[in-house]
């Protein structure tokens, strides 16, 4: 169960107080009528399903009722930041990738069913990701 920092309440609260609302930063087209069926369909139905960094919209449903965004690692479930509506994430897959090449941050490689492979195998998987 997640421990989520509500950027409005400025407190860590239990996941039970929140509802997830899917991928963040999905902007409704300004002029829907000008969209082709395909463009409109993309907006309605297509979402990312990344392995790693994901920006998600959540709502503090039984708290302050405010919507906000979470940057979460879908592999480790680490929440890297939460930020208010209208703000941009500080942590992104790109920003982490550039840090990784500098050797600062280790991107966890988990999520597979079989764990305990040798460190060499783990390195190989990391190599695939990179």
């Amino acid at each position: 169960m997640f421990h989520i920092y509500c950027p409005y309440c400025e407190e860590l609260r239990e996941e039970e107080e929140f509802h997830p609302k899917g991928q963040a930063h999905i902007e409704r087209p300004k002029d829907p009528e000008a969209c082709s069926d395909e463009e409109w369909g993309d907006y309605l139905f297509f979402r990312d399903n990344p392995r790693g960094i994901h920006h998600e919209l959540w709502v503090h449903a039984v708290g302050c009722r405010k919507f906000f965004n979470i940057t979460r690692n879908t592999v480790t479930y680490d929440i890297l930041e939460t930020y208010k509506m209208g703000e941009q994430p500080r942590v992104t897959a790109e920003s982490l990738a550039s840090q990784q090449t500098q050797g600062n941050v280790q991107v966890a490689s988990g999520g597979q069913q079989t764990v305990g492979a040798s460190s060499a195998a783990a390195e190989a998987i990391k190599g695939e990701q990179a």
Partner: protein
Amino acid sequence: MSKSLKQPNRLREGGRIDRSRKLSFTFNGQRYQGHAGDTLASALLANGVDIVNRSFKYSRPRGIVAAGAEEPNALVQLGSSEAAQVPNVRATQQALFEGLVARSTNGWPSVQRDLMGMVGKLSGSLMPPGFYYKTFMAPASMWMTYEKYIRKGAGLGRSPMEPDPDIYDHLHQHCDLLVVGAGPAGLAAALTAARSGARVILCDEQEEMGGSLLDSRELLDHQPAAQWAARVLEELAGLDNVTLLARTTANGYHDHHFVTLHERRTEHLGETAAVKGGYRPARSRMHRVRAGQVILATGAHERPLVYANNDVPGNLLAGAVSTYIRRYGVVPGNKLVLSTSNDHAYRAALDWQDAGREVVAIVDARLSPSGDLVEQARERGIRIIEGSAVLEAKGGSRVSAARVAAIDIGAFKVTGQAETLACDTIASSGGYSPVIHLASHTGARPTWNEEILGFVPGLVKGVHAAGSAHGVHDLGEGLADGVAVAARALEALGVSARAVELPQVDARREGLACALYQVPHEKPTLRAPKQFVDLQNDVTAAAIEIATREGFESIEHVKRYTAMGFGTDQGKLGNINGMAIAARCLGRSIPEVGTTVFRPNYTPVTFGAIAGRHCRELFDPERYTALHQWHVEHGAEFEDVGQWKRPWYFPQTVNGKQETMHEAVARECLAVREKVGILDASTLGKIDIQGPDAREFLNRVYTNKWLKLEVGRVRYGLMCKDDGMLMDDGTTSCLGENHFLMTTTTGGAAGVLEWLELWHQTEWPELQVYFTSVTDHWATMTVTGPEARKLLAEVTDIDLARDQFKFMDWREGTVAGVPARVFRISFTGELAYEINVQANYAMHVWKTLFEHGDKYGLTPYGTETMHVLRAEKGFIIAGQDSDGSVTPEDLGMQWAVGYDKPFSWIGKRSLSRSDTRRSDRKQLVGLKPKDPTVVLEEGAQIVFDPEHAIPMPMVGHVTSSYYSPTLGGGFALAVVKGGHQRMGETVYLPMADGKTHAAEIVGTIFYDPKGERQNV
């Protein structure tokens, strides 16, 4: 030392039991005696009970193997009464109490003379590896047959058939540092953190804290190690910043350092918690801990060696033998053969000899072992057979001998002539596997450490391992490790660690262990007697070999194919051996093969502890309207609508007989159509919307137009998602230029509020508008029927004249002397007034209406009548007649769609998608059964051609269907492909009973199509 008479294996002295307190207990109907401080397992061993169960698959007799959570065999069913039944308790973890009643979970009719045993060989050949997999591939009907057979044979325990008399609590805890395990490393870590001022929780699953210190042969500060443990625990108990939780298992490690601890409060005292002073204490507690940092000092499980017939009672773990002798004063046999790959296990032989029993031999797989413990054994003159191992145990219901021979581990071969040693106990040790379960729950990968021949836990940020849990098995090093790890955790917390003086440990020389898992046999594995890997699931080395031969190369596949590590065991004892065997068969190394995933819970948790107080009336809250008590007093039957209890219908007693629902609903319907009825509509969702942009906001979230709605007027609106599908409907009233009251469906209230907030906060934050739920603040009473105006006129100061208070108007005034808002909207098709008053005035108003209503035939009606009446009018219920795939156009409600509104409101663009423009979409129509006595089944599938070969193309289904007393027959609403163009056509509804109903497609309005009755 010699035997006590009643308990043949009990030593006269020693152990941590209280000899002054005798406890009697019953196992499989037989009465025995033990002592306070015993576990059920130690008491059974003291009494010389060899067979405690029959095995899962082969029905072989099984005895106690271990002394803790890793015990695979001694699963018992506890409870003297039906309500107190607890399945699958490990006898090694159950403290003995007076009057304890336990049975083997398996063994039919008894473990001693097991009928299943006779078919054991048969069932064994019936259940080869991959049995489950292969059976699931077979027809499902065969599985049903197998399943009964397996259940009966396997006896996985059973649930109580009566309610649990006990109560269970949930506690929410926060701490800086959670230390799991109160052995040497855990105690050292907790002491360091506690003295440094951190808030610490220390938990330990055993009856007594101290872990291996409780049965250690080693001295700390020249005193028994248990004394140091007692001193530390005493200090910790006196500190305000420390919470000690004994008998508390950390069962699950969840996200973000959320750990569930299961504390058993009374299970060591009796089968149910004893009532004291009219108060029943909680039987157990679930601590839901959020920790800043976590130290896993969970120790290690000893690995047994895998040799032939290693499951015969009398085969034990070496460490368990020491524990039973030193902690419980029980020596589980007379003549011991120890088979080991390491020095540490020599303790078992030394303890055995100290207990005055014979050590036949120590069989060491290593050549020239030389550690201090080995030297001690040599000095005592114990025979040590080097480079050898026990190949096979002999005996049926108890070990009678061990066959021992020299082996070549690398070549996996027996190299010497086997010697048979008469004995009744074989203790084995193949090394120590760190208990990595909790760390694995976090998803972190364990890694193989060749030095300690075990997996060490992978650790996510904030989690630390200490002591044996990451392979630091030496006592002195483990203590130091606890302090060092605590210092690291404290640093992460920003707390400066205070130094802790550690007790002095005598230096000990320990030889290197060798890597031995499966012991070779003269015969190949597939032909040798069974060599068990997972005792609980009856998985043998041969089964793993077969699995690899059949092409299962991934350890996860091998697990599923053989069932290794399944069930309550979760691979505690057998997993590493199984992996080692798979690795040998596949010609790979253990780290290449990897380990399977351990999942919560570490040991089984009773459902009561998971449910806590969230049961019975607290399972799910019930919501009552302000008028609930009146409904109860007037005999209402209730219907659940979301969490609300709504009156369903009000059966009356007619001629001494209570009406059926059908009769009551018919009477209520006619009362509304002919006189006047009243409905408690308080559960409708109500959202107060205010702000200068409220009107614009409504215009965007509803499909229809709102800009010109005047103060005092009401409008019905449809709400779609942006995919154009109907989400909810309701009326919204203009209370003031910047003030509206929206109603939603009863079930949709919370969702609609969140929906409005979503659009406001994420897309249109520039709009100034505010939403407040006022559902509970207002009670709503619908007075409807031809006499409604006359009745209401008697109790209100509002001018009800037809031209003054028109249909779809609302007015403010008083009703029964109470401030009220009255809305002239109709869900019945009759003249109707919805009276809203402050909820706490509702009962007064309701009763006043009845005082005046008698002469008009005022009749209370419930949701069923409401449904019939609205369906007769073709009024939809969102969520019943629509299901998330239905557009307003599919419902034929184009009249409520503002196609020319300037803002592209939510859902508009989707109505022109190619999919929503299809002419063969399912569309809402009315259905009139050809036989008027037929009431179609809701959900029934519709076909065009009943003569079509099966499977017939299904073209729609019935969404609402009722008997109408007004129409004198059944009628229905349904969705039918292209239905709007099929008026007058006949469709068919094939039913499960073989009958096929015919119905005509008609319009959705069955009654008063022009809407004159609501407009009078």
